[in-house]
């Protein structure tokens, strides 16, 4: 039986034409309680020094500002490590939170993982 409020985060690595790529795929709600799990997964992916980090949000059903903060932090890490950060697969409910927070122009956001 899983603990309440936990999410699953898959992390995969692949060799793309542009270089090594990491894909972080959280599934579930990313609220205040769950955001640290996503943060740890992203940091773990950065440790592999990918040239591109894709966060596939297609499995995310809800995002609180704690989740946004985690992704802004990931963006700051991307700048420091010269990694390209791409968000993809946002459900409209999650996209709305980005819009209200005026974050859609801050990130590179695409619809699908293939576009990333």
């Amino acid at each position, binding site marked *: 039986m899983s603990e309440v409020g936990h999410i699953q985060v898959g992390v995969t690595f692949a060799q793309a034409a542009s270089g090594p790529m990491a894909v972080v795929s959280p599934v579930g709600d990313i609220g205040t*309680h769950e955001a640290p799990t996503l943060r740890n997964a992203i940091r773990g992916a950065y440790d592999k020094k990918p040239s591109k980090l894709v966060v596939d949000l297609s499995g995310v059903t809800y995002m609180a500002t704690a989740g946004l903060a985690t992704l802004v932090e990931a963006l700051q890490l991307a700048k420091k490590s010269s990694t390209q950060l791409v968000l993809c697969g946002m459900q409209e409910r999650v996209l709305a939170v980005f819009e209200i927070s005026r974050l859609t122009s801050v990130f590179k956001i695409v619809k699908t993982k293939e576009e990333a």
Partner: protein
Amino acid sequence: MKHVNHVNQVNQVNQVNQVNQVKSHAEGLGPGGGSGVPTTGTPSVLTASGLISPSLTSSDIGDLRLEIVSKTAYLCAVRAFMQSLCPRLGFDGAQSSQIVLGVDEALANVMKHGYQGNEHGRIWITITPFQDSATHRGAGVRIVIEDQANQIDLAKIKSRDLDDVRPGGLGVHIIQRVMDEATYEHRSGGVGMCLTLVKHVNSPAVRGDTLGLDGTGLDVPGLNKCCEAEGSSSGGAAA
């Protein structure tokens, strides 16, 4: 027969609520109470003092009261509760999501800034559907969130500069954007905060409301106008 049973259940609940309110006042604990040390003992995950049925109207439901300990793990339970309730009060999908977000952010702020991570603090959420005949904004819901945490300077509770792109500090901005009203007050007795949130069914659209439930809303300005991360330092907001 089933409907009558539900109404009877609600009536019983209302009676219980009245008793609880009196008790809270008398002990100085809980919603309506003033000072007091946070209740100790075995933390309850979530207690709902109301019963909801799809057959009930908002006027039938009356007040609902939830009590939750200040554990972020339980925020998901409140989100699920609000997501279930709001459509039954007349809110559409986008509005319901906004209310869920507003309440979730408010509770997270209490846990983080009010109780500062103390997981034994208590938070009360009182939900009251209402009819507003004085304006054109129609029916709505009033959500009062109370705690016994340290009182925060009301002047310091404000949305921050969104052009400052950095992690954190967006909760108040989100709350103010998604709700029609958000009023912070100090509870009497020198301990605890009270946040009153109001949302009308006919409230003006919030940016993001245009997002359709069929996915067509993904073609909104901003999504397709992507910027590279390297060029983002002057745009957007913080989280």
